[in-house]
Each structure stands twice: as structure tokens, then as C-alpha cells.
């Protein structure tokens, strides 16, 4: 009597009592389905959030020019990693020590494919408030003076015209990329009409008339980190001085966006090597990298923990399902007492009887588990689809739940099976 025989016997008795088997299965199905659905949704949320983090620049390497630590000083500023960010004790770098456009181009050239770009002028969600006028209408607007990478690296879609190019920057063209919202306000919602038309912006120090070269659609991916200022418009940073008090052509802080498929640690090391080389002959300042990937990791950890905690709560319903299995197995053993007696008379050992009933209980749970995985997976995929990103149920969650349902079958099936195995054959044969 091997496992295969036990499986066949078990399947046979599941078929005999279809309705009862189904009701017993239901407890397991509901338990497993809710666990799988929750884990799938959690996974979807995580994938989506990570994409959102990546596109919002949370993986960005922030490079900051800082004063070299003075070997004689007791407190070195570089011991405080946020010193520069928080406006700590570091001295402001002089113009020569800051990054200029040549430095940035050099870094891009050396880093090659490992970085996606170095966006400038798009830090934070702000911008300078400069309302727009065109066609005799006025619309609110936040000007962002950027380089060619900034817009490219945002999760925005250009729906008409083109993006700002390096040439626009180099030749200080007065061009703008505006949002579909602005198009709605100024151009009756027709992007084609907007592209190529003149637009005037009222700056803090005078107004400037430029040409609309492109229209972008706001980010609609819906991730929790996605945020689009629909009144923002983008212009080359080289024209900022015309309408604004400040023009920036040197930066003490730049952000470097790693490529999506590049190894973050390797990219960081390579970048650090490049920066060390660049600042080798600078006695007073050096460039340091700060990255926030640790916070991404800890965010993922929190999300995982939340998923696991909710799953564990859903898992309680599995316990209830398991008790249902035990209950029905006890009924089955009583109901089949005579059969057990016959089997014993025909040579079945205790362990053969026990195996038969344990396997039967495990089959109930495994079939329930499989149906639960299908149902939970379908619900999870449906839910994640509604959240905007369809994901498959995580494989390890599927395997774990199937293993868990087998374990439940073993645990809750053992007692009834053992009861069956210990039946006295004579009493069992006499049982009516």
C-alpha cells in the first residue's frame, strides 16, 4: 500500500461525498484565497511603489561639494552626513569648486550607460510662480528651468511637439514645454494649436515671450509617490536670467539618476572614483555622494511586514477551516467504521489505515489550497489591475500556502486517522 494507492482511495472518497467535500474544502479555500489575495495586492503595491520611487528619484545619488575635512579640526563636518543638506558647518564652495555644465557632461561621458542622466532644475515640486498668457488668456504657471535630462527622466509623456534638447540649452532658446492643463486653459485643449505658438510669462524681473515646443501629459500612474504639478512648465535653465533674479550655471549639489538596470552599488563606486579624480587637485573641497536607497529598502520592509501581518490574520480563517476538516474526518471515520473493520480483517495494518485517512485529509486541504490559490490569485490580480498594475501572485506565497494547507491536513487529519487506526476490528465489523 503505497502513497499512490492512498491518493486513489482518498480521491475516491472525496468523489463519493461531493457536497460534503466541497463544504469542507470551502473553509480551506476561503482561508488560502484571502491570504493569496492579500499577498498579491501587497506585492502589487510594492512593485508600484518601487517604480514610483525609482521615477521620483528616490534611488538618485546626490552629489554634494563639501569642504575637505581639516585634519587639525576636532569635529570633522564630514562625520555628519546631513551636514551639508541641513546647512551645517561646511563652508560654501567657491565658484571653481562647484559643478558647471562641462563637469556634468564629463561625468555623463565617463559614466556612460550606468546612469540615466543628471537632471538639473527639477529638484522638489516647487518652481517659480510665473503666470502665462497666450491668445489673450491667462493661466497660472510654475516655471522650472531645467536641462535636457530633467524632463526626460520624469514619468511624463510628451503628447505633442518635442522635449527640450541639449541644443535648446546651449543656444539659450526661449522655448517651453507646457502641460495639457495649461493647453486646456490657453489653447482650448488643442495641443497641436499650442505647439509653435507664442507664449508670454510674467517673471519676477520682467516678462519673456517664448515658443511652445511641446505639451506633456501629467503622470497618471497613480503611485503613492507620484505627484504632478499640472501648472508646471519647463524651459532651458540658460534663459532663466531673462525673467528671474537668479541664473544658475554652477551647482554645489547635483543629482545623478542611475540606470534602471544598473547595479546601484557599482554605479555609486564608479561615480565616487570619477569625483575623486575630478577633485584630486582641489585642496579645499571634495565631492561626496549621498544616497537614500536604505530608506527605500526600509520602506519595502515595512510594506512586507504589513502584508505578512494581514496575511497572518487571514490565516486564522485557515485554522477554522482546519477544524472543519478535522470535524468532517471524525464523521467520516465513524461513518466508515465498518469499512475500517473490513479492511483490517483483510490485512490492513494500523499504519495503512492511518495513512489512508491522513492522506484523505491532506487531499481535502491540498485541493482546497489549489482552489484557494486560483480564487485568491484571480481576486488579487483583479484588485491589482484596478490599482493600475496587474501582478501575478508571488510564487513563494503560492508555494507556502500550498505547503501550509498540506500541513493543516496532516495536523487536523492525524487525530481522526489515528482514531480509525486504533479501532478494534471486531467492534468495527459489528458496527451498524
Amino acid at each position, binding site marked *: 500500500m503505497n502513497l499512490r494507492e492512498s491518493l486513489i482511495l482518498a480521491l475516491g472518497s472525496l468523489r463519493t461525498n461531493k457536497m460534503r467535500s466541497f463544504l469542507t474544502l470551502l473553509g480551506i479555500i476561503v482561508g488560502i484565497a484571502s491570504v493569496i489575495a492579500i499577498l498579491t495586492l501587497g506585492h502589487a503595491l510594492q512593485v508600484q511603489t518601487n517604480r514610483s520611487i525609482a521615477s521620483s528619484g528616490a534611488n538618485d545619488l546626490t552629489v554634494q561639494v563639501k569642504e575637505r575635512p581639516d585634519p587639525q579640526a576636532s569635529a570633522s563636518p564630514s562625520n555628519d552626513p546631513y551636514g551639508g543638506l541641513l546647512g551645517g558647518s561646511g563652508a560654501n564652495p567657491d565658484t571653481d569648486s562647484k559643478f558647471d555644465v562641462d563637469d556634468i557632461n564629463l561625468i555623463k561621458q565617463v559614466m556612460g550607460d550606468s546612469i540615466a542622466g543628471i537632471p538639473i532644475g527639477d529638484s522638489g515640486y516647487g518652481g517659480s510662480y510665473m503666470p502665462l498668457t497666450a491668445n489673450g488668456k491667462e493661466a497660472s504657471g510654475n516655471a522650472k528651468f531645467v536641462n535636457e535630462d530633467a524632463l526626460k527622466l520624469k514619468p511624463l509623456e510628451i503628447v505633442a511637439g518635442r522635449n527640450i534638447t541639449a541644443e535648446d540649452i546651449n543656444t539659450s532658446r526661449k522655448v517651453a514645454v507646457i502641460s495639457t492643463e495649461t493647453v486646456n486653459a490657453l489653447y482650448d485643449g488643442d495641443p497641436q494649436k499650442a505647439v509653435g505658438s507664442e507664449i508670454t510669462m510674467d517673471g519676477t524681473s520682467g516678462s519673456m515671450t517664448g515658443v511652445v515646443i511641446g505639451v506633456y501629459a501629467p503622470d497618471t500612474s497613480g503611485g503613492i509617490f507620484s505627484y504632478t504639478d499640472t501648472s508646471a512648465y519647463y524651459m532651458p535653465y540658460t534663459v532663466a536670467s531673462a525673467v528671474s533674479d537668479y541664473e544658475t550655471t554652477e551647482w554645489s549639489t547635483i543629482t545623478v539618476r542611475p540606470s534602471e538596470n544598473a547595479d546601484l552599488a557599482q554605479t555609486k563606486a564608479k561615480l565616487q572614483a570619477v569625483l575623486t579624480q575630478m577633485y584630486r587637485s582641489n585642496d579645499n573641497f571634495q565631492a561626496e555622494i549621498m544616497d537614500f536607497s536604505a530608506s527605500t529598502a526600509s520602506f519595502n520592509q515595512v510594506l512586507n511586514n504589513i502584508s505578512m501581518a494581514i496575511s497572518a490574520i487571514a490565516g486564522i480563517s485557515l485554522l477554522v477551516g482546519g477544524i472543519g476538516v478535522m470535524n468532517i474526518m471524525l464523521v467520516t471515520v465513524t461513518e466508515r467504521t465498518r469499512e475500517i473493520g473490513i479492511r483490517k480483517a*483483510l*490485512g490492513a495494518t494500523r499504519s495503512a489505515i492511518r495513512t489512508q485517512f491522513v492522506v484523505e485529509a491532506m487531499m481535502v486541504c491540498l485541493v482546497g489550497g489549489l482552489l484557494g490559490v486560483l480564487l485568491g490569485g484571480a481576486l488579487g490580480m483583479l484588485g491589482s489591475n484596478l490599482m493600475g498594475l496587474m501582478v501575478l501572485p508571488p510564487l513563494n506565497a503560492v508555494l507556502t500556502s500550498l505547503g501550509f494547507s498540506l500541513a493543516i491536513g496532516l495536523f487536523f487529519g492525524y487525530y481522526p486517522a489515528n482514531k480509525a487506526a486504533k479501532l478494534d*476490528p471486531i467492534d468495527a*465489523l459489528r458496527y451498524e
Partner: protein
Amino acid sequence: MTSQNPQDYLDEPTDVLAPQTQPAGAGHLLDMRGIVKTFNQGTENAITVLPGVNFHVDEGEFVSVVGQSGSGKSTLMNIIGMLDKATAGSYTFAGEDVTAMDDDEQAFYRSQNIGFVFQSFNLIGRISSLKNVEMPLMYAGVPVKERRERAEYLLEQMGMADRMGHNPSQLSGGQKQRVAIARALANDPPLLLADEPTGALDSQTGRMVMDLFHQLNREQGKTIVFITHNPELAAETTRVVTMVDGRIHDGQEAASPYMAHQPQAGVQALDPTLPMTPLQGGQ
């Protein structure tokens, strides 16, 4: 098939039809001495059903056990069938001491050596006749293919070739009992233990089943212990053992063992002087 004592089977196949080859008590197939069975032992409800029974069956014998309800014959049968353990006494089967075996060893030994035929057939209702016959083979560890072939062969022998796929509920009583006999023969055991096998059948079907037992005894040399209430059927067997209050009144050999084997001669073999006759009259 069984290997416990090859000597038991070596001389069995060809000569069993000849009356002179009936075993002369040299090697008892089963031998019980001083069997005591007390239920609820150690409590004030303790009741001794068998006070110390000596009972033996030789190879090739067709022994009937008769007695009133409560005479202890079912208890004796359970002990013979290793379904129950004696409180005291020795029990050897084919020279092996079965009282020394644990439950699982007995289960295996039982599957190899004893085929049960019950009054109520005791077939499992939700599986086919074929699967029912295969069951003892399964527990004896016979591979699937051989199992099926053996079960099919036995059902054909019982004239049930066209009913193999039927569940017991679709069969008549006689058909059920034939399936049950096929099942009892599955592992080719030397002993068939039949508990009122005709009790639930009409007389014609009962006759047919009885003929089948005679045939198995005669042609295959099966040793049969046959428990019955029916004096006519008991009289057909080679030896009748009567139980009264847990004690055996033994030794009533049929007048002619050979004649007793002939089903049609069964009634003629009945000796009116047998002590069992008045007993059965009283039932």
C-alpha cells in the same frame, strides 16, 4: 503464495480428491490449546465466554462449528481469525505461534493465511467488485498489475466476469457472496473462515454457495471452518464441532468424509445419532 510452511502445500494439489489423503492429524493447520477468553477482565462485569477450549483443524478439513447464540462460537471464530486475542492459551497456525505476534504482524499474517466470508458479505459498497477483490492483495503488497490479473481471474472463476465493474449494491445476495468468496481467495490462503455464509441467502442461493465451498475444499484443498446454524449444511462437512456454553463437544466425524464432500450426498451423511441434532432441534 504463502511461505510460512511450504510443506503444507507441497502435497496438496493433485490428490485431494482421494479420500485416503485426508490428513491424519499429523500436522494441524491450526491448533488451539486452553484458549480462555474473558471480556471486561478485571472489572465486576467480567465474563468468561471461553473457559479453556482445545480446538484443532487439520489441513484439507471442512469443519463446521455449530452452537446456539451465545455459545461462544463467534468469539472462537474471532480468535481463529486473529481479529481478537485470547486472554490465555496457545494458538499456533501452520506451526507458528500467532499469540506472540503484534497487531500489525497479525494483520499481515491474516491477509496471507485466512480468507474471511461473512454472513453479511462485508463488501465495501462504494468500490467495484474488482476493487473489493483486489483489496487483500493491496494490503499484502502485491503489485498493481498482478493484483488486477489475480482479481479478474478469481471473479471469472466465481462466474462473475461480467460483474467486475459493478458496485456491490448492484449485485444480488448470491453474487455478493461470490465476490466475497473471490476476495477471501485473493491471497490464496490455506484457511477459509466462513461465518454463516449462507445465513442471508435464500435456500437455492445458499445451496450454490455451499457447493462452491465443497468445490474449493475438494479441488483446491482449502481448509474450511464453517460456522452455521443449519444442521443439514453442517452435516455435509467432514467434521462437526458443537459448542455449548463455550465448551466444545468434538470429534463427530461424518460417516464417510468422501461422501460428505459430495453436495448431493450431504443429507445422506447425516447421522441421526449425532448429539448436535437435538440441540439444533431446540433452536
